[in-house]
């Protein structure tokens, strides 16, 4: 049997694909394969990461144009099959624009591009993306975004709360996100979108390892 392989999608303008590659291959010894956005053959990957960056220059809206790539079209079947998809930062924006996750990401309340470490509370165990089986847990992950303010209507927010879809909340809201939301999953739990960067927190040498579990949990 072929070893478990994580596909890392590259759009024109992606810039965290190599960070994800490093975190998976070097820190976790997980096999990866780069997938160009025009590829629609996802048959030989077992999970997918949509990395951060500025896909298609973030023209129109962040993640808006990536939605029309052949790979994203193929992703619908992939998600339906139950395989796991992790969208980080711009990847999260793509997941909302493409309808895999509800809501939208808009400009930070203070208009600054925020590059910082964020203290976060893991809320949900859905999908087991975080190491919080027994309790809420605090983790620290880097954030780097200009448009990371999560927005949704009240009805959607109620659905997120009622169905335990809020994975991650900011302890100190940096960008004005509704309900302090930093990451959410779909109902099934196999799709996670988050603004913080777990791939940048996979080695003590660069400031922490709180991101390891999330990347490791691509294999389930």
């Amino acid at each position, binding site marked *: 049997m072929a070893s478990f392989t994580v596909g890392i999608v590259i759009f024109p303008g992606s810039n965290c694909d190599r960070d994800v590659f490093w975190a998976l291959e070097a820190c976790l010894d997980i096999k990866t394969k780069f997938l160009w956005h025009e590829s629609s053959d996802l048959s030989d990957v077992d999970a997918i990461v949509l990395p951060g960056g500025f896909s298609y220059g973030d023209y*129109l809206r962040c993640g808006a144009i990536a939605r*029309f790539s052949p790979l994203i079209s193929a992703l619908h079947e992939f998600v339906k099959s139950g395989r796991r998809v992790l969208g980080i930062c711009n990847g999260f924006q793509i997941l909302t624009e493409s309808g895999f996750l*509800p809501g939208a990401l808009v*400009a930070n309340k203070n208009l600054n591009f925020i590059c910082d470490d964020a203290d976060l509370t893991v809320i949900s165990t859905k999908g087991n993306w975080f190491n919080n089986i027994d309790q809420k847990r605090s983790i620290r992950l880097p954030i780097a975004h200009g448009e990371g303010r999560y927005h949704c*209507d009240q009805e959607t927010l109620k659905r997120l709360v009622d169905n335990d879809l809020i994975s991650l909340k900011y302890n100190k809201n940096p960008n*004005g996100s509704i309900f302090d939301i930093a990451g959410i999953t779909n109902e099934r739990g196999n799709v996670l979108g988050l603004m913080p960067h777990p791939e940048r927190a996979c080695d003590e040498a660069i400031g922490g390892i709180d991101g390891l579990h999330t990347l490791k949990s691509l294999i389930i």
Partner: protein
Amino acid sequence: MNQFEVKVFIRLRPSVLDPAGEAIKSASGKLGVEGIKSLRIGKMIEVTIEGNEEIDIKEKIELLSDRLFANTVIEDYEYSIRKL
């Protein structure tokens, strides 16, 4: 075949905070212009498109606006169509 000029206006929904609009409102005050109660930024997309009837154009622009130009989670749109 006729040509039509379409202007699509996209605005953040009233419920969505527009920090960029707030920043410009603040700068407007610094320019000495008083009395601005609200200022919000939108986008305008101009399209020149071929078609037979205005009704066909309307259908295409609706599709484009709803699926691409605007994200209706956060934005509203309206448009005008003019035969050239």
